[in-house]
């Protein structure tokens, strides 16, 4: 079956981010979405640790330990950006001021429940960071993930079995085989990668998917 590379997945999400959007990109693959945003459009990246107007990684040797992103990687600030403290930063999220956040996930339910902070393994050290705030705060929550685990199980599920990050919060799921919408009436298919059939994703997910 035809599948998008991780690079292509990131580029696909980037296509759906309009000019002027205030966007938070989660740690990991979502961070790579920034590399695919069109250079001729102004899109505002927010970082939970107090940046708005976050720019790309600095040139080698130009790293500043005080200028990092949520993943603690060195970044830059665009001309016109601003710094602020954590209460203001999370007010942006929780107060509904962000247009879009892009998050990774362990599981997304057909109704938009998100599980992305814990696998529930008994001896694991839990860590949540800003995931729960982003999940419930942004106007639209996009999940970016491979549809299947390495073991071949669908991560788009009827109900999440992993500990939840937020309830009914995900609007779209961007995967390597297609883009899905989640919602009260269940998941639908927005688009499929060329060569992937509706029947295939129904079988992979076990969900009664229809085209949106």
């Amino acid at each position: 079956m035809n599948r998008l590379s991780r690079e292509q997945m990131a580029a696909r999400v980037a296509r759906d981010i309009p000019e002027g959007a205030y966007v938070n990109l989660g740690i990991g693959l979502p961070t790579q979405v920034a590399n695919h945003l069109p250079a001729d459009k102004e899109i505002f990246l927010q970082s939970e640790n107090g940046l708005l107007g976050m720019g790309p990684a600095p040139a080698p040797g130009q790293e500043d330990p005080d200028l990092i992103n949520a993943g603690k990687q060195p970044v830059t600030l665009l001309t016109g950006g601003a710094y602020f403290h954590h209460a203001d930063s999370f007010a942006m999220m929780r107060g509904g001021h962000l247009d879009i956040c892009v998050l990774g996930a362990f599981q997304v339910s057909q109704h938009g429940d998100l599980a992305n902070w814990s696998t529930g393994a008994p001896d694991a050290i839990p860590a949540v960071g800003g995931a729960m705030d982003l999940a419930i705060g942004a106007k639209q929550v996009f999940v970016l993930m491979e549809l299947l685990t390495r073991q071949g199980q669908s991560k788009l599920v009827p109900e999440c079995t992993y500990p939840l990050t937020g309830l009914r919060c995900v609007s779209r799921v961007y995967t390597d085989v297609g883009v899905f919408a989640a919602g009260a009436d269940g998941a639908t298919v927005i688009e499929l990668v060329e060569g992937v059939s509706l029947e295939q994703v129904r079988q992979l997910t076990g969900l009664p998917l229809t085209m949106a």
Partner: protein
Amino acid sequence: MIDKSQSSCATAVADITDGATVMIGGFGTAGMPDELIQALIDHGARELTIINNNAGNGDTGLAALIANKRVRKVVCSFPRQSDSWHFDAAYQASEIELELVPQGNLAARIHAAGSGLGAIFTPTGYGTQLAQGKETREINGRHYVLEYPIHADFALIKAHRGDRWGNLVYRKAARNFGPLMAMAARCTIAQVGELVPLGGLDPEAVVTPGIFVQRVVAIGGCGPDGAARTTAAAAQGEDQ
């Protein structure tokens, strides 16, 4: 390119509808966005709910809005002043409704709205008339009143300088409620004394980041010519 600057105050307030809830910045006249309010008067929207610390001073700004009978209700902490005659007259004539909120609760409720909180237990007002009928709770030996966020459809605020992304800095005590209201309104309109090029504001000193501001209008543009005033630098290439 994202440019939140507006050609005039009239354009900036054009979609404020009758019955809208409008926050107006300022403490007395400091920080009061007079030109935006005048544009709102000219625009004609009625039955407004206004949130401001006061209820107008003298004959301009919020006082003029009240004098023009555009205000159905005022939410404020301190309406009664030596020069609040327009509000006083409307209130005594029962033409205007008043919700009196202690100033700190007003600030905290606006901040709560901007920050996404559902409600806050605040210490102010417990045991007073202004908490009558409100839920209370004792927490760690102190008494608190449950207060709800105050949201608005629009915020009209005055800042000192702004850029086309909506970043703002204020001037002295004219800052007051501006940064809070910017967070709490669906659409925040800022009049600025000067529109500066992108990068003209120190990122360490930006008080209101642009995410909280939807429209910026340079007050020069509210004068007779109707054109927005910008610095010469802003008119030139700012991204060089």
